[in-house]
């Protein structure tokens, strides 16, 4: 009995330890694979394999229960890619959007991928290769013709710049695949009920908000309670650009201790633009349902019983309105009309988010991975397929969109035109973004006046800059 117990103990202990050692040896093999080159399947002579991570694509095709729009599954995208890039075996790996950045980081560390995305994460120098050597010598996509391939904002944002990694300034970690272009959506029906002029192309944020404020109360036609606006604190900070409340920053060194405090921090204390921004946000909040602090109150938007005139919650409405447009649900799209975000006097607006395709530092075959990256981002058919099926809220970063089916839709043409000329161009925005998010949490909760908000915003920016300097040892 004792002997049996001992044997059992040894077997169980071994069963625990073996998987751990196997896991360790697997990552060792991946590193060896990098230096040795060749295919992931052991160099059998088959096509080279590239493992590409794509967030937010389900394994199977799905049908959206609200719009009726069918989204293709991962297999469809993989098949399409292999048709367009036939000499590479592309293995797509899907991860959910929830926690995608951490998953990318973990997969990068474990060398479980060759190609993946990033947006504005400052830690990309730890994950991805610098593509500069490829861009210096590639005949198809290189530094000399990047501006011919992509829109100017997209070209600007290919260059890495961050206060946290000043030593990586100027490097290129990825090529742009998509460009964000958020929308505000208004209810045409409510505008007609209240007799308010619909938004015009040259309306400013203040014009839109003033219109919204006219539609809070009892609807003169239906007798129901209406709200002129709706917004949540999420993404609200980007409206600051439409008010010229925040400034674009430019630096060749990205050393935080070189930041001109008067120009980029102290100006906030007395800035009329900042004050006007908070006044605008206060008006939006005052004309919204009570539940905006916890992101409730807009459940009836897009329905027959909608009671919100202008929905400023761009993060939520941008993708949903495009789904209805692509599904050609005219009963919805003829009533709920999207418009682009107004620019400030500086002619800029919005959230400069570019999904860029990059090569993992530990990629098995970086040269083939580069081939995949440049093919995906410059092939109009691939970009069109991806945007139409999997990223309907985004638009293409390509300069030439001729023949792309997504631009058969008039609104996409409008979005593209807008982004060509008005994307907020800056080398950094974290100095003001995080402090502004915290102040906006108080704004949506009606806990702060615009003047107090401006003071708190200034203190937040100053603290952020000083704390980050201390962390960086500057």
């Amino acid at each position, binding site marked *: 009995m*004792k002997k049996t*117990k*001992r044997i*059992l*103990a*040894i077997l*169980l*202990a071994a069963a*625990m*330890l073996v998987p*751990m050692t196997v896991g360790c040896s697997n990552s060792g093999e991946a590193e060896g694979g990098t230096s040795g080159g060749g295919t992931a399947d052991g160099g059998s002579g088959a096509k080279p394999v590239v493992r590409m991570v794509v967030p937010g694509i389900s394994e199977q095709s799905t049908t959206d229960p609200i719009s009726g729009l069918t989204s293709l599954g991962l297999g469809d995208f993989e098949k399409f890619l292999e048709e367009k890039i036939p000499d590479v075996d592309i293995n797509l790996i899907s991860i959910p959007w929830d*926690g*995608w*950045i*951490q998953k990318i980081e973990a997969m990068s560390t474990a060398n479980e991928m060759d190609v993946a995305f990033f947006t504005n*994460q*400052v*830690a990309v120098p730890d994950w991805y290769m610098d593509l500069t050597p490829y861009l210096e010598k590639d005949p198809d996509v290189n530094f000399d013709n990047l501006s011919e391939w992509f829109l100017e904002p997209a070209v600007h944002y290919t260059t890495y710049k961050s206060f*946290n*990694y000043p030593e990586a300034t100027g490097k290129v970690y990825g090529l742009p695949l998509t460009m964000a272009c958020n929308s505000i959506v208004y209810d045409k029906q409510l505008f007609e009920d209240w007799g308010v002029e619909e938004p015009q192309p040259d309306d400013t944020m203040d014009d839109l908000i003033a219109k919204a404020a006219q539609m809070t109360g009892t609807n003169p036609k239906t007798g129901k309670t209406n709200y002129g606006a709706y917004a949540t*604190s*999420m993404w609200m900070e980007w409206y600051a650009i439409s008010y010229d409340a925040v400034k674009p920053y430019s630096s060749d060194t990205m050393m935080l201790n070189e930041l001109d405090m008067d120009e980029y921090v102290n100006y906030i204390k007395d800035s009329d633009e900042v004050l006007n921004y908070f006044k605008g946000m206060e008006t939006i909040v005052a004309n919204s*349902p*009570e*539940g*905006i*602090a*916890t*992101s*409730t*109150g807009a459940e009836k938007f897009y329905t027959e019983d909608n009671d919100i005139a202008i929905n400023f919650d761009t993060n939520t409405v941008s993708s949903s309105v495009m789904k209805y447009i692509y599904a050609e649900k005219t009963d919805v799209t003829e009533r709920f009309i999207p418009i682009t975000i107004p620019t400030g006097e500086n002619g800029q607006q919005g959230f400069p988010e570019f999904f860029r395709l990059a090569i993992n530092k530990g990629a098995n075959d970086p040269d083939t991975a580069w081939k995949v990256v440049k093919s995906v981002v410059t092939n109009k058919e691939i970009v069109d397929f991806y945007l139409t099926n999997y990223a309907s809220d985004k638009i293409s970063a390509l300069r030439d969109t001729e023949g792309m089916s997504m631009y058969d839709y008039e609104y996409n043409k409008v979005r593209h035109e807008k982004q060509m000329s008005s994307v907020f161009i800056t080398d950094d925005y*974290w100095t003001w*973004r*995080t402090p502004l*998010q*915290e102040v906006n*949490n*108080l704004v*949506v*909760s009606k*806990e702060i006046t615009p003047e107090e908000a401006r003071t708190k915003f200034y203190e937040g920016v100053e*603290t952020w800059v000083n*704390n980050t300097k*201390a*962390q*960086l*040892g500057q």
Partner: protein
Amino acid sequence: MIKRNKLREYVSWYLLLLIPLVGTLVFNVYPLIQTVMDSFENMKGMFIGLVNYQILWEDDTFRQSVVNTLYMAVLGVCFNVPIAFVIATMLNSVPVAKNVYKVVFLLPMIMSMITVATLFKYLMMPGEEGVLNFLLEKIGLGPFNFLNDPATSRESLIVMVVWKGMGYNIILFFAGLQAVQRELYEAAKIDGANEWKQWLYITIPSMKSSFTFVIITSAIAALKRFTDVYAISGETGNPAGSLNTIMLYVYRNSFSTLNYKDLGKASSASVVLFIIILLITLLNFKLTGSDNTETRLPRRRRRSLK
């Protein structure tokens, strides 16, 4: 020969213990050590000493999160534990259909927190859309903003948390009540003690170990509050950061896709939370007398027995 046999037996047991020990080392001890190390580093892994802790100390948002966490923990435990105990006592006294009542009280516990939070968000919606406000209006009260008002959001959240979580404590107390000796009640009855005195002087003292366990586990769970506040307010902790807890602060600084990621700050906040939980657990042990001091003989007496 006998010693070698003993040794072999011990080795077997240690080998068997190796399994959970390795798991604990890999999934608990190593992450803890790594977190402590990260708290002294910046984003690039460079050692910066106590800078992150200093930032934390001066951060109003973090201070608010500590206050919120402690307040909601105290409130939650003070309501959850007594209510659960009272219900368990009533359950113990019910002659029939005990199991039916047990299932009824356990049902909220098995629902996911996201489902419960969504339910309560709509129950407590401000204005006429919220079910609670609709009912309160019928009796001439409200409307209230509940979860949308910083003055009432924490209390409203605790109502939800108590509703969902007390089933587990009821079962624990119920199990503890089965261990109370029946003879004590019989003897008390003979001596003329009524039910209230029996409950006060027999039931409650006999349940001391159950109370200790329930209070400590409830306190630890309350201090690590995340899922419920995230489900209600997202990562903002709105309204006005009133639902911001230490865990939500850690999440926002380490996992958020919307926020600036500061792993050093998040790690230092995690270490602070660890210390708070440790101190409160030790305090709980002291207050509930579970450190065995009352069962130990005074030192002089122990020496004389040797």
